[in-house]
């Protein structure tokens, strides 16, 4: 029998609220400790307890992180999805199940093993049986695929933060499961893990915690937030880290945290903080951005800095609240009524979540406008391999703030909204400074901030705002380009698609095509993106939504002669992008274009 090494997918079917997150992370972490390239995806319902949950672990020496096309090892713990889960399993797969669910597994074509996991767990601790039961499948899998005991113990310790009793109880269950599997299973597993040299200094972290840390390094002074999946853990990450990283020796904080009454208020607080000269931020998801839109327009027009993270989920409306999508790009780019445009930073890795976390504040104050962080549920809430966060390589940039009378005297013809330097960015003074105060307003205003409905004044102001944002392009993170010498097919993509792109690229290259990649990391678009399109024969714009929103941005911002070169491949079903689906769609579009 062929044995595959470090190339399989485990799917754990459980119910929400049964504690399987711990057992699944132990599996993930123990393989990670062995140096096996792994990724984990939590597919969870919008529910506290009881609805079905799946956790997908993929091991891949090639470093593929998308959920695979099929399941190699299926774990069945949930009665509600039992038969559907069984139906999907391909012949020859491994099935591990909890006998106490008392449902049959009639698949003679698979390698099947069951244990009365709940009953066994009751023997260890009756009260915790539901949770501990999950540890038995960890033990079974350990036996089958050959997880190293030292790595496993390290993962258990990490999961239970070294709490002695918890570690002991769970290790005992894992060991029991492993021993029973050893004794009873007569077949060989077709999938095994093999230790690899673990990359020095790597660890697993989710994008929300990375962005939270980045925000703290960016000097956030005021976090306002309203709970919404999948962004809550970003705010909670900041709250978790503040006492360790942003308090004085006597325990006084340098960042306020306000749980707002709603997203409208959360946005208002961000504007208030920015107006007063602090670094304010909030985090939310699409529905929150819809609510915040009026304030977003005010920030744009009155030129108030602030940061808002949008961890995208599936829209429209409440949509699929616990599934992933890149559906808010249009919304963020032009949020609010009238002519507006906003800076959107689009990290594709956890390292970039951290980096853009601190940079967002610098951009916001430099350009005196709102800056969005664009993440999604997949990047934000799943664990990714991280090589560590680079300490900020630039000091904090507070932008053009006039802080003293001397500084003011040096500026010829100061006006809050006068373009003194010719770069579209005016100077500002802060409340409390006594320097040239104005009444900030969302109504029309002249260069001194005085109310005005004068046609010329309005038109000139709007054109300056446009110029300000246009000039920002080249200062924002440029694209990450991996280019083939052939310069035939180019794929432009963004954000969490980074985790599937290499697999997509490899599938397409199997057909003999050569594929270059260009990952957009900010809008307005960096000039290098235009150059990438110019250099390539055919360019696909790839994204996780229905309408091709990044494609739309490109169509709008590119010179008209380049527009025919780009084609859209946009697909969204709520799942993290599976490489084969996107690769096939790309091949179809390329075929159509050839005709």
């Amino acid at each position, binding site marked *: 029998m062929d044995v595959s090494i470090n190339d399989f997918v485990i799917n754990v079917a459980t119910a929400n609220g049964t504690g399987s997150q711990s057992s699944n992370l132990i599996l993930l972490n123990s393989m990670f400790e062995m140096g096996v390239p792994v990724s984990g995806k939590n597919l969870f319902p919008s529910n506290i307890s009881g609805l079905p949950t799946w956790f997908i672990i993929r091991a891949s020496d090639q470093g593929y992180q998308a959920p695979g096309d099929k399941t190699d090892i299926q774990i069945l713990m949930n009665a509600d999805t039992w038969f559907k889960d069984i139906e999907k399993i391909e012949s020859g797969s491994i099935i591990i199940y909890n006998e106490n669910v008392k449902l049959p597994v009639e698949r003679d074509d698979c390698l099947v093993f069951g244990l009365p996991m709940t009953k066994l767990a009751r023997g260890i601790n009756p009260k915790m049986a539901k949770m501990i039961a999950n540890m038995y499948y960890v033990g079974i899998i350990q036996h089958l695929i050959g997880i190293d005991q030292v790595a496993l113990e390290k993962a258990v310790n990490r999961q239970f933060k070294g709490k002695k009793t918890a570690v002991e109880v769970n290790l005992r269950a894992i060991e029991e499961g492993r021993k029973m599997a050893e004794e009873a299973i007569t077949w060989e597993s077709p999938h095994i893990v093999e230790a690899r040299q673990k990359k020095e200094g790597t660890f697993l972290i989710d994008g929300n915690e990375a962005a939270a840390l980045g925000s703290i390094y960016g000097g956030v002074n005021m976090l306002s937030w309203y709970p919404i999946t999948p962004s809550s853990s970003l705010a909670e990450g900041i709250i978790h880290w503040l006492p360790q990283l942003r308090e004085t020796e006597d325990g006084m904080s340098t960042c306020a945290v306000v749980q707002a009454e709603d997203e409208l208020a959360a946005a208002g607080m961000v504007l208030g903080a920015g107006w007063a000269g*602090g670094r304010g931020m909030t985090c939310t998801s699409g529905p929150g951005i819809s609510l915040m839109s009026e304030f977003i327009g005010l920030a744009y027009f009155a030129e108030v800095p602030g940061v808002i993270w949008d961890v995208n989920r599936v829209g429209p409306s409440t949509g699929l609240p616990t599934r992933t999508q890149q559906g808010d790009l249009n919304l963020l780019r032009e949020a609010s009524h009238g002519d507006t445009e906003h800076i959107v930073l689009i990290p594709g890795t956890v390292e970039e979540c951290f980096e853009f976390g601190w940079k967002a504040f610098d951009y916001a104050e430099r350009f005196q406008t709102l800056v969005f962080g664009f993440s999604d549920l997949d990047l934000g809430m799943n664990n990714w391999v991280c090589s560590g966060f680079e300490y900020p390589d630039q000091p904090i940039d507070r932008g053009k703030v006039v802080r003293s009378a001397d500084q003011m005297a040096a500026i010829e013809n100061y006006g809050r909204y006068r373009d003194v330097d010719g770069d579209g960015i005016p100077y500002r003074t802060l409340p409390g400074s*006594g320097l040239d105060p104005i009444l900030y307003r969302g109504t029309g205003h002249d260069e001194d901030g005085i109310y005005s409905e004068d046609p010329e004044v309005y038109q000139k102001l709007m054109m300056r705002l446009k110029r300000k944002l246009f000039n920002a392009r080249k200062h924002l993170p440029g694209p990450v380009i991996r280019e083939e010498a052939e310069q035939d097919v180019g794929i432009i993509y963004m954000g969490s698609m980074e985790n599937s792109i290499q697999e997509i690229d490899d599938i397409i290259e199997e057909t003999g095509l050569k594929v270059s990649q260009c990952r957009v990391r900010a809008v307005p678009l960096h000039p290098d993106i235009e150059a990438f399109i110019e250099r390539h024969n055919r360019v696909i714009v790839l994204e996780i939504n229905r309408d091709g929103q990044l494609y739309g941005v490109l169509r709008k911002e590119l010179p008209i002669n380049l527009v025919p070169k780009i084609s859209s491949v946009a697909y969204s079903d709520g799942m993290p992008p599976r490489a084969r689906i996107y690769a096939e769609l790309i091949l179809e579009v390329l075929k159509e274009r050839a005709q």
Partner: protein
Amino acid sequence: MSKVIKLNVIDRPKSDYTGGPSSLCPGCGHDQISGVIIQACWENGIEPSRIAKMSGIGCSSKTPAYFLGQSHGFNTVHGRMPSVTTGANMVNKDLVYLGVSGDGDSASIGIGQFIHAIRRNLNMVYIIENNGVYGLTKGQYSATVEKGSKKRKGAPNEQPPIDMCKLAINLGCGFVARSFSGAKKQLTSLMKAALSHNGMAVIDVISPCVTFANNDESYKSYGYVKTQTEELHGVDYIHHFQPMNEVDIPEGGFEDVELFDGSVLRLETLSTEYDYTDPTAAISALHMAEVDKKHITGLLHHNTDMPTADEDQGLIDTPLCDLSEDMLRPSRERHEEIMTRFRG
């Protein structure tokens, strides 16, 4: 002979507290309130640069352009001045936040933010310039208009009003007062006291709309308020920098309300004893007035025993907006420690 310019306790003339010309209708009650704001800030000797003028949208919210021209301000969006003020207050707790709103702004879209600002005890003065109508959109009823009240044109209002003072008292607001834009002396004293209060101070000022609701059938018309208002007490404000022995003691009963900065609000008892510390007394008095189709004015409720929103945060003394990079960004050494911990 040169004109003698009167200076306040920080040697500033009153002209340092004025603003641009008003674009409201001639005779608007709101302009009188602006005048009182100027007077109160000047008399209290507050440095204009330390004041932050905040507002939402509407006639009242336009007024920050007409007073305190040397103060920064923010004319925000409809009903959401409280949240902007909250954000500003968090990063600069040393400013004096003076919010001006209207009944359209605060009692409808803004009611949630009004409530939550009180719940947090946001350290600000919250003035509601209450005329019962939407002026800028030409006179529609607002949510504070009394049942049966009638504006100049159209049918009378059929819905009961939201009483912002009742609401504030029920929510535990530490300073709640009602006054009338035409009662300059009372309003000035209350405004000065509100500026001396630590925490949320709500003043609901009945301010007749001269254009759309100054007819006799309107319960918020100048004529109606002038005749149908009962003052709970005479009100006088004594600065903390003015020794008590220089103050005239009124005849009859009076009670002194000590304020946060050491100033005193002197309540001269008029007809009945009114216990401003008892929230149920305030609610009862407001209810009785409503039954009698009357307004009562004065300090309705006062309670200082609550931490403010910024005090609750345990923030460093320096306003957060003034912190330097070394206070805002963890050090490189600390960063290495954190990374080592992650790598475990």
